């Protein structure tokens, strides 16, 4: 290549050296390299590519994939407003406007002096204390106009984040109901000691007896997954904890990692013991980066206590350690094969399956990927046995489930219930009234109308990864669905045609309805797109993307129909409005400069 040599950068060389010039660490290198200038200038990418002996285009490909990596300048203060529907319901748009006005800034643009940029980001997992924002990766919740005024002033004064009032960065756990897991007081190593005493086979027997199913939403039997990974050919097996909690409205993993990190890491070690893995990763979503220092401290403490490293708890041959891998703003990386691609330092594109990760995962090695909550739950099984675990919940959904409750209720937060709990009971406990609908399982989940509130949280009835967003009678369910459609269009990885184009087309149709140009023909096209996305998408993101629309169209159809201006066809644009710029340029506003589109329409 004829690229000119980039200017030397000792800081960048230091980042590369810290990561051993390892190409599988590319994403981590890009995240660290961005700290130097706040963004990733073109010569930086060239230098990283040279340092890793990778094609530059591949480095650019990865840098362009993740929302929190910037290949164009952004502000030294980078403000991202969380834009989940719950943030919207709490008025995030008005706050964003106010902040931009105070800083003389356009949303999405960087100020001319390079001081600040303000825009939105997908749900940051602070729905119980929203509206929320991230400033240079640090989370601030409970935003009010008063707080926004103060923040504007701090930014104008260029006050370093460390000198901002500490209470801004206080994140509450908001644990409202505890059960087996959240009430557990376990000395680190107790579960691991019990499992080792049972032997690998005995431990897997307990896991089987527990009938534990994955808490990430899909509900696959954990013991079956572990057994497959254990029996798979290949010696260097891998345990991955999926802490890429990106599903809008979900924040239970944030609380588990903040307060119960030992349970999570112990659960990962229990998985390693079962399948014979030597290497573990915690894939931490970029939005939770602020948790990293304390998580590293827990890992260090566990290493010192002989719970990680070689010959764990004196068991010869049980060697296992855990590294934290940061994400950088890509919901699709919650899909396990995309997560593994990302772990390998690539774009987070879901793989063709089979082969499944349990046989061919991280770097082609057998890999067991489990959710944060799943890992934590295995501690209960190790301590009290599989039968005791299976005695709670329902026959097909054993144990308890953590719910992240947000939206229109008196006490949003974390609620732990045995599986089988009816929706009505949950609504009562969290102080919800006049409830119109509940979105269970996040944007990809299911929207329940009031006549379904007798249903139960369980894999066999209403499965969920944990999100539980409540909408009272004042909310517009069309706007709820539209927010989720925008989310999926933003988060589509773009690999397959139906999801890449389909989510954007769906967004276009929802916006057309919102803008008052909707017609009945649009509802037919929406229906058709819903089906195609569901059928033909490459991964779960695409096939779940139409869920919010399918549910609300079926259960809250009037919310759509009252937006239709015509029962037939209506174009998405207004010819007369399209001439506005020409009128402005020619300084004309006489009748001759207008098209009488409305008189021509047949109504």
């Amino acid at each position, binding site marked *: *290549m004829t690229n000119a040599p980039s200017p030397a950068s000792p800081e960048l060389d230091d980042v590369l050296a810290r990561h051993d010039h390892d190409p599988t660490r590319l994403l981590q290198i890009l995240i660290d390299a961005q700290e130097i200038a706040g963004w990733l200038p073109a010569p930086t990418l060239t230098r990283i590519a040279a340092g890793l002996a990778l094609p530059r285009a591949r480095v650019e490909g990865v840098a362009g994939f993740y929302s929190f990596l910037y290949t164009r300048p952004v502000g030294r203060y980078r403000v991202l407003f969380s834009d989940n529907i719950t943030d919207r319901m709490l008025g995030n748009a008005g706050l964003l406007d106010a902040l931009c006005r105070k800083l003389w800034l356009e949303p999405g643009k960087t100020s001319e002096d390079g001081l600040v940029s303000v825009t939105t980001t997908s749900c940051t997992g602070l729905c119980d204390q929203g509206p929320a924002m991230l400033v240079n990766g640090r989370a601030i919740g409970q935003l009010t106009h008063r707080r926004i005024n103060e923040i504007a002033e701090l930014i104008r004064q260029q006050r370093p984040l460390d000198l901002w009032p500490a209470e801004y960065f206080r994140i509450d756990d908001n644990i409202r109901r505890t059960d087996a897991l959240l009430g557990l007081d376990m000395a680190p190593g107790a579960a691991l000691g019990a499992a080792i005493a049972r032997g690998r086979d005995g431990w897997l027997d307990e896991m089987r007896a527990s009938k534990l199913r994955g808490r990430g939403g899909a509900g696959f039997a954990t013991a079956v997954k572990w057994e497959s990974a254990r029996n798979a050919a290949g010696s260097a097996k891998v345990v991955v904890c999926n802490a890429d909690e990106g599903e809008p409205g979900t924040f239970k993993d944030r609380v588990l990692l903040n307060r119960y990190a030992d349970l999570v890491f112990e659960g990962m070690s229990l998985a390693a013991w079962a399948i014979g893995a030597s290497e573990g990763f915690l894939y931490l979503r970029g939005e939770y980066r602020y948790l990293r220092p304390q998580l590293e401290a827990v890992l260090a403490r566990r290493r010192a206590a002989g719970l990680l490293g070689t010959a764990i708890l004196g068991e010869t041959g049980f060697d296992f350690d855990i590294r934290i891998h940061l994400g950088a703003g890509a919901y699709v990386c919650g899909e396990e094969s995309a997560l593994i691609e990302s772990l390998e330092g690539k774009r987070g594109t879901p793989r063709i399956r089979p082969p499944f990760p349990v046989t061919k995962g991280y770097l082609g090695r057998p890999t067991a990927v489990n959710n944060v909550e799943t890992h934590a739950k295995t501690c209960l099984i190790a301590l009290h046995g599989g039968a005791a675990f299976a005695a709670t919940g329902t026959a097909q959904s054993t144990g308890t489930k953590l719910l992240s409750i947000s939206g229109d209720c008196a006490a949003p937060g974390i609620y732990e219930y045995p599986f089988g709990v009816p929706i009505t009971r949950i609504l009562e406990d969290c102080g919800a009234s006049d409830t119109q609908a509940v979105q269970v399982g996040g944007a990809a989940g299911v929207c329940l109308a009031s006549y379904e509130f007798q249903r139960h949280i369980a894999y066999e009835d209403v499965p969920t990864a944990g999100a539980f967003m409540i909408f009272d009678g004042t909310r517009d369910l069309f706007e709820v669905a539209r927010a989720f459609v925008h989310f999926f269009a933003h988060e589509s990885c773009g*690999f397959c*045609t139906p999801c890449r184009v389909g989510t954007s087309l769906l967004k276009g149709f929802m916006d057309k309805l919102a803008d008052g140009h909707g017609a009945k023909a649009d509802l037919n096209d929406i229906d058709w797109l819903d089906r195609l996305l569901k059928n033909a998408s490459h991964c779960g993101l695409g096939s779940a993307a139409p869920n919010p629309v399918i549910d609300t169209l079926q259960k809250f159809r009037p919310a759509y129909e009252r937006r239709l201006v015509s029962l037939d066809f209506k174009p998405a644009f207004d010819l007369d409005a399209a001439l506005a710029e020409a009128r402005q340029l020619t300084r004309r506003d006489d009748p001759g400069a207008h098209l009488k589109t409305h008189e021509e329409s047949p109504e």
Partner: protein
Amino acid sequence: MSKQFLLDGQPVPFEEGQTILEAARAAGHYIPSLCWHKDFPPHGSCKLCVVKAAGRHVSACATPARDGSEVESNTPEMNGERRGLLQMLFVEGNHFCPSCEKSGNCELQALGYEYEMLTPRFRHFFPDRPVDASHPDVLLDFNRCIFCELCVRASRDVDGKSVFALTGRGIQKHLVVNAESGRLADTDFSKDDLAARICPVGVILHKRVGFAVPIGERKFDVATISAQTLKESP
């Protein structure tokens, strides 16, 4: 007794390890594709080869044939989905067939005819994708990219150059070249690379040979893409 599956009710023999698409084409049944290429592992991104097997929609290019299974492909339902996918590919890029040098040799255009796509159906996205004419021998017109990654794979796996890669995400995804300047002229790309000959649409065009074969006499002008594909199948 060799293994076979039923494709639209007709028996199709296959060998272990063959995909539905490979076995079907070898037996003289056309299943369309854009991102699939016989010399590369399946990619599975264009989804035009979508078929229904055991009631589920799967990519025929990436799904192994299974003995005794029933597969639906040439049905109004599947062809309707394919037409929709083609319409999606047309509206997301800027495809002006009448002024495109690839017209008649373009697989996207040929599939549009094959599946009787009469309208774009959806709103055009009109993306802003500047062309790159920097290279002495080859022009890149990104407006027509369908993200099949054939050039990416050919350059990486055969030419050993990795001239191309995709960056961006979702609808913002786009092709880039391996140079800090972003210009093809600043890469080691050559017109003799496999990557220079593999584009199924009109992104990678050779200079000074335009219209050497007149429109009307080109590959898909003389025979449909299904006929041409089956003729070339082993």
